Structure formats: C-alpha cells, structure tokens
C-alpha cells in the first residue's frame, strides 16, 4: 500500500517534471507576444508587459504562411491516406497468420523504423531523381514519409487487429461471407478506433516532417511550414518574436487537436475495440 505521504511526493515530482517538459512551449508563447527589447531583457519577464497581439497576422502576411501550411496539409493528408490505405491490409495479415515468415516480415518492418531519415535521404534522393519523381516534389515527399511512417502504423494497427477475436470472422464466414467481405463488414468496423487513431498520429507526424521536405522540395512555393520556419532562422536572426509567432501558428492547431482528442487517442490505443 502507498501511504498518502508517498503519494504526495510522487505527485510533486510529476508536476515538477511536467513543468520542465512544458516550459519551452510556454516560452514560445510568451516570446511571441513580447516586444523586441523585452525579449532580451534581464532578468527575463515571465508574463509579457505589453503583449503584441498583432504579431500573428503580421507574420502570416509577411511570410506567406497560408501557402506553407497548405503544403504541410497536403503532405500530411497524402501521407495519412497512403499509410492507412496500404498499412491496414498489411497489419491485418501480420496479425492473423502466425508462422516464421510473419516473424521475419515483422523484424524487417521494425528494421525500417530503426533507420534514420537523414541516412535514408541520400539514396532516396538519387532514386527519386532517377525515376523523375523530383518533378513532383510534394508527392515524392509523401512517398518518402509514407515509407518512414509505415512501420509505426503497422505495429500499432496490428495490435488492434489482434484484439479482434478470430471467431467473429469465422462466424461471418459460416454466415455466408467471403474472406474479404468478413474483413470489411466485421473486422474493420471493430478495429476502426485503432486504425483512425493511428492514422491521426501519422498525420501529426507528417505535418511536422522536416528532413525529407527540406532535401527534396527546392521550390519555395511547394515547401511545408517546417521548411519555411527553418528558412526564417538565419545566422543573424533577431526577430525571435516573429519566429515564435510563426511556430505558434504552426503548432497550436495540432496541439489543440491533440489535447481535444487525447482521451480518445489513449483509449483507442490501449483498449481493444471490443467490450
């Protein structure tokens, strides 16, 4: 049994760690609102004296953020659709069959996850260039990110499918359905939560993707917000408030979505779809 005393110590420790972890986020928000001189003031102020609310629309206009965000959305949506489309069937097969080849396949899938994007980009770039994919740079990035994100999706969704009892599928087969029909009408609806949640996580991951986009997309008009943010920061940058405003506009929607959905996300990943 945990004593109330010990409980309080754990709670305190949790709060301290949460503060340390969330401090940069907080600092991003307050820096965005500070004026130029206040940013460099010492001692630093924790609450802006004169919040500059106009900074957001200013940055949006000046940096052409609409275009960047749109490109990020295109890449994230494309990746999510491609990963979910290709990965769902794959995860199902990996969940339903048990033999040595499945283990080999799973091992290879996990291996892919281990390779860092910065290592993969050179061969990918050369390969894409050879087949002419660089003429469609956003699509090329979608392909590259899909390959990178697929293992994560497959591992998560496979676990979801494993939670759907095989007997339900067998009941559907005996009731007169085909394998494909049983998958679509019985297994997929029951695994829906896990698939959706994993797809959302992939979307969030792709929305923040940087390495592939930076390397593959040369045309500024096609670059996503992550690359745009990077271009904003030069060696002599002093407009920290503008940069932080950009960052704020970039991450706040995704952060809000995550906070709103987090309960369902956690539930979707941990509990099976069945009760």
């Amino acid at each position, binding site marked *: 049994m945990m004593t109330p005393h010990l409980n309080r110590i754990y709670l305190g420790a949790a709060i301290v760690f949460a503060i340390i972890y969330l401090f940069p986020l907080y600092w991003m928000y307050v820096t965005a609102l500070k004026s130029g001189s206040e940013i460099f003031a010492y001692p630093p102020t924790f609450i802006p004296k004169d919040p500059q609310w106009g900074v957001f629309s200013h940055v949006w206009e000046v940096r052409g953020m609409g275009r960047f965000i749109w490109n990020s959305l295109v890449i994230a949506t494309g990746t999510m659709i491609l990963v979910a489309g290709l990965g769902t069937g794959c995860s199902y097969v990996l969940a339903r069959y048990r033999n040595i080849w499945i283990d080999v396949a799973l091992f290879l899938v996990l291996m892919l996850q281990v390779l860092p994007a910065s290592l993969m980009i050179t061969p990918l770039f050369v390969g894409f260039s050879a087949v002419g994919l660089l003429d469609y740079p956003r699509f090329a990035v979608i392909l590259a990110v899909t390959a990178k994100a697929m293992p994560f999706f497959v591992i998560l969704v496979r676990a979801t499918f494993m939670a759907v009892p095989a*007997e*339900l599928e067998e009941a559907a*087969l005996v009731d007169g359905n085909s394998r494909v029909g049983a998958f679509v009408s019985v297994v997929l609806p029951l695994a829906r939560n896990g698939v959706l949640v994993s797809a959302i996580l992939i979307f969030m991951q792709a929305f923040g993707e940087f390495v592939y986009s930076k390397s593959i997309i040369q045309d500024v008009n096609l670059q996503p917000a992550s690359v745009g943010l990077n271009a904003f920061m030069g060696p002599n940058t002093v407009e920290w408030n503008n940069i932080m405003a950009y960052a704020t506009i970039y991450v706040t929607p995704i952060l809000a979505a995550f906070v709103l959905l987090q309960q369902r996300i956690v539930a979707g990943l941990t509990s099976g779809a069945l*009760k």
Partner: protein
Amino acid sequence: MTQELQIELNGVDKHYGAFHALKDIQLAIPKGAFVALVGPSGCGKSTLLRSIAGLETISGGEMKITDEVVNNVPPRHRDVAMVFQSYALYPHMTVIDNLTYSLRLKKTPKAEARKIAEEVAATIGLENLLDRFPRELSGGQRQRVAMGRAIVRRPKVFLFDEPLSNLDASLRVHMRKEIRALHDRLGATSVYVTHDQIEAMTMADHVVVMRAGVIEQQGAPLELYDRPASQFVAGFIGSPAMNFVDGVTNADGTAVTLEIDGAPELKLPRQVACNQKVTVGLRPEHLSISAAGQGTITTKISVIESTGSTTYVGAGDTGKITIVLSERRDISVGDTIDLSINAKDIHLFDPHSQMAI
C-alpha cells in the same frame, strides 16, 4: 429418423505441421440426428467440428454433406450454421442486425429478413431485445442470440461448439433441454461438441467419444454406458467415474480376485480366459452397501460427501473406491462396510490394450 445421410466422413485426416490432430475419422450422420462429440480437451473434437464447418481444411480423406464432396468448399457454400463457445456475436451490430446478417448477405429483401428474424426472436424469447447491442445482454441472452442467428438461416446442419460452457450451472441444464427441443422442432441435423459427458448423454441420439484424434467409440448413449469398448470410454462416460481395480481371473475363468485388502472374489457373468491379469471396472452407482458379512468386498469408509439427494462414499485407504448412494444411510467415516455388486454390472478390461474383454 430416416437413414438418408446428412454428413459423411471417410478416413478424414488433419495435420497441423507434425501434429496429427485427426486420424482416419469415419463418421456417418443421418439426416435429423443429434450427434455429440465428446472427449477431453485436445482430443480433436473441435477440430472435427471446424472441419465440418469448413473453417479448417482437412489434409486427407473425404467429407460429404448431403452427398456432395465438400473437401474444398468454403464455409459460405456449405449451408451450415455454427454456434460458437464465445457466441461470436458481432459487437458493433444490434441483435436484429446480428440475426439478419446472413439474410442480408443472401440479398433477402429487408422487410422479409426482418420478418423472419422477428419470428425466430419470438420463438426464443428475444422479441424485446432486438435493438440492443450484444454488450447490453446477459450471458444467457447472448447465447440465445447466437442460437437465433443460426436458426434464422434454416441451414442443413447446425454445429455447436461447447455453446453452454460459459453459462452458470442451472441455466446450462435449462438450455440443454431447450436446444434439444429446438432441434426436434426444426428437424435439423445437429453436431454438438462438448467436454461434458452429461450434456452428450442427455442431448444426443448418437455419442462419439474421441481421444487424441481418434474415435474411441460411437453409439447410442446408453450403449456407451452399458458396453464401453475401452477403459477410456468406461471412465469418461458416467459420473462419478467408474472405479478401476486390478485383479486376476481364477483357474476356470468364472470369477476374478481383486488385488485389494482381503482379496475379495467376484463372480463373473460369463467365462473368460483363466489366470489372466485384468482391470475390473465397477460403476459407483452399481455398488451397494450390504449388511456385515453379506457383501463380497469388505472395506473401510474414508470419505463421505453428501449433497442431500445423493451421498458419495469413498472407501479403501485413499477413498479409492467410490460408491453412490441415493438413500441416506447411517454410516460414518471409519466404519467397516461390505459392498456387493451384480455380476452383470462388472466390466473387465485388458490392462495392456485397455480394451474391454
């Protein structure tokens, strides 16, 4: 019951890699029969049922359903319905959608499907639950939905995979009768898998006892009880289990001497090989306690368990011999008693082959 066959298995084999799950199964199931497959876990009874359903592909032999070879026919074209142990209700569908699932697949018009499902629901007492989801039902109600889903289809064959094992004891006894009544009303052919020999004995016309992928014996329930072909069947059918005592037949083969304290001698109903080691099977319900000096086996009571209606008496040093008494007796642990048995109720088995003599 007609002699027309509904299901016919000829030399059916099933391998899982190196594991031989079904060995040369011969089984003929007439139309309208209620057949129970019984045996301990891992004996292959569920594999056999799943093979009939088409969920497992058999590795050898021939399987026919109404004279059509179905070895490679997928489940949906076999016209069989199955009730699963876990019920396997579709959790994302309401009761009515569960019931009409197969009809919708057959493109039955919606209104007609609903009508059929409602009729079936009414016969099994589900009419007020049609819009509920499976998670909102009790175990017994789920069981009924699973049955209903099978009935709605009017299949050639009903397959039951331990459908009652998740219910509590009293409901199980009740559903036992209900399933049998349903079978009779629908005139269907049923194959019922269970590990509970009482279910098999009470429900089935024909009981198939399996062990390690082999059919040990099949026949009418009482035939298995009266004339078990092997020590395994003898021990499996009947509750509490048959007592087995080592013994040796005498010089002319008309009696057997038991190898327990006092070396009692039992008269045999017919003559067998003389001076042979045998295993003697005595059903607990066939043993009776006689007045001192009048029985054949003299022993001591070591355990008494009374359920009110019946009393289980364990006799011998470790309660080795079980006796079932249906009347109350004034006995207590430590008493010396005399047991007697009718010669016709004595079973003899070969200690090596374990087959009946």
